[in-house]
């Protein structure tokens, strides 16, 4: 049994000897974030949606988590976040990166942050947001209140309402007031139809006031989407179809296959050319910035 203790004691000895070798004290690299002006708080965001709400308020966080599957900031926010620190995905925040960014305050989504709350609080005070409650307008207003940007929040929301009113009028004009709509997404695995829940539901059926196509409401609001086979797209009998196609070749290929199929071509919406192909970002980003950019994108498509 002695053989076991020998290695163990050697390791310990080695660690301590190695550590004692360079005994000089350095005080130069102590953290100090109090030099920041009180008005310009350094905000760390642990939710991609909160990050985009902050950007909508003209607040650039010092760092943010990245999109889980993307491994990077969302394309709509990336231009604003050139100097921001990447914290990794929300489910596995890189604590060291968070510390590097020296935040004064951390904003986070309750769903992901609760488990490691104590660790975050060691770094800076944490503001938790329940993003499942309320709309992005509520989150934006709340952030506005917390960071002295109430007016900006109000302004942003009223600009958004104005934009959507315009689009709504155009849609009514082109497709009639009672036009029904559905949104589907093609991925290389499956075909999905979006329910009235987030992220597609609110923007289509509330903001743009489109009628949900047959059977969309029945999908419930528990899940954002349901997997369907392409043969049943016609059963929804939608006047307008939004197709979310990821910005990559793979997704584009799947979409091309779908459009080549006879099932697709027999759809009324296709024959009337009432299809809107939209990208996953910003459309699936349920945030102030995401929805606002989606509306802008739609506006451009309607002009064409």
């Amino acid at each position, binding site marked *: *049994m002695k053989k076991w203790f020998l290695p163990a004691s050697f390791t310990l000895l080695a660690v301590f000897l*190695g550590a*004692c070798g*360079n005994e000089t004290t350095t005080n130069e*690299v102590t953290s100090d974030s109090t030099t920041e002006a009180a008005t310009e708080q350094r905000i760390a965001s642990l939710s991609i949606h909160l990050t985009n709400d902050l950007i909508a308020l003209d607040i650039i966080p010092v760092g943010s988590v990245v999109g889980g599957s993307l491994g990077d900031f969302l394309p709509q926010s990336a231009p604003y976040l050139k100097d921001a620190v990447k914290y990794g995905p929300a489910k596995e925040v890189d604590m*060291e*990166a968070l*510390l590097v960014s020296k935040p004064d305050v951390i904003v986070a989504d309750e769903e992901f942050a609760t488990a490691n709350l104590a660790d975050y609080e060691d770094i800076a005070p944490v503001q938790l947001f329940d993003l499942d409650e309320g709309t992005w307008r509520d989150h934006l207003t709340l952030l506005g209140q917390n960071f002295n940007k109430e007016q900006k929040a109000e302004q942003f929301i009223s600009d958004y309402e104005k934009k959507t009113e315009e689009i709504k009028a155009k849609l009514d004009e082109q497709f009639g007031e009672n036009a029904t709509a559905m949104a589907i997404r093609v991925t290389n695995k499956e075909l999905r139809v979006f329910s009235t829940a987030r992220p597609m539901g609110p923007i289509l059926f509330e903001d743009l006031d489109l009628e949900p196509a047959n059977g969309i409401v029945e999908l419930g609001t528990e899940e954002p989407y349901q997997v369907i086979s392409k043969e049943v797209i016609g059963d929804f009998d939608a006047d307008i179809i939004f197709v979310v196609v990821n910005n990559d070749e793979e997704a584009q290929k799947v979409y091309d296959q779908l459009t080549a199929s006879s099932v697709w071509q027999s759809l009324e919406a296709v024959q009337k050319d009432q299809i809107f192909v939209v990208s996953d970002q910003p459309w699936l980003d349920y945030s102030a910035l995401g929805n606002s950019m989606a509306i802008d994108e739609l506006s451009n498509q309607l002009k064409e």
Partner: protein
Amino acid sequence: MAPKRRNSLLLYILVTLLLVFLTFLFSINLGSYHLSLLEVANTLVGHGSDNSILVLFEYRLPRILIALVGGAGIAVAGSLLQSYTGNHLADTGLLGLHAGASFGLIIFMSFFSQSFLYAEMLIPFFAFIGGILAAILIVYLAKSKNRTINTNKLILIGIAVSALFNAITLFLSLRLSDETYSFAASWLLGNIWARDWIHVSIILPWVAIFSLLAYRLAHPLNLLQVGDEFAQTTGISVKYIKNNALLLAVLLSSGSVAMVGNISFLGLLAPHLARQLVGSDYRLTLPLSAILGSIILLLSDTIGRSLFEANPIPAGIFVAFIGGPYFIFLLLKNNRSV
């Protein structure tokens, strides 16, 4: 053991321990938060700034220790399992023990993790129950009529049991909540999720105690290598020794993988390298396997977390990256020699 041989063996142990130390230094110096060697050293001896203390003692050190201890546990378990099956290709991951442990872990995570303060102390026990369930199932199914274990059958059954438990785990986690599902999915990839001191305090005594008990089996395991009949003539109970080896393998592997994720091939890789270096004396291969297992897992985790900062790669993927081809190499070599 001849003195000359003993000296060279001691050298191996010393050299590999030096490697552990170097890996440790490498790992403790890497991370998003930049700390110079000097700062690391100062912090380790108690002269660090608040931030460097936080980084080293709260973020890096516990994770490093968990990787070291978990790697050792899995390696020793692999070594024991190889002795139990009499086959050098046995691996706790391949044979389904990890899948069993994950089943126990998901049950814990879903129903008991919030039950009381320090509930996490129960994790190894839950994982062990899952692991032992899988082990009993596999051994029962793999035993042929004359009560011997056919290795090919064992491996195939291991794969089947593994698939079964993984399916149950994923099914349960899908039904329970998004969080449980993503936890299970990342666990399956071999993600070292345990990163706090509480986890160190759970895994360290667990692996230390059972490794020491395993070491006590070294001599009888050596006799078993010559053959069951021979071992029997020396007066040891072959069945007793083998059952103990299996039990310890399950205890060590399930306790370890519960904390460090589904690390496959490590239980195969480390004992093999150890045998290549010092031969087949379990008194030496067991400790050396443990040391090598520690090095491999810590190195994999360090590379995974530091090379791809925004998108950390789970340690299990790196281990499989080396272990998979090595396993194929051994299979081919084995086939040729038969």
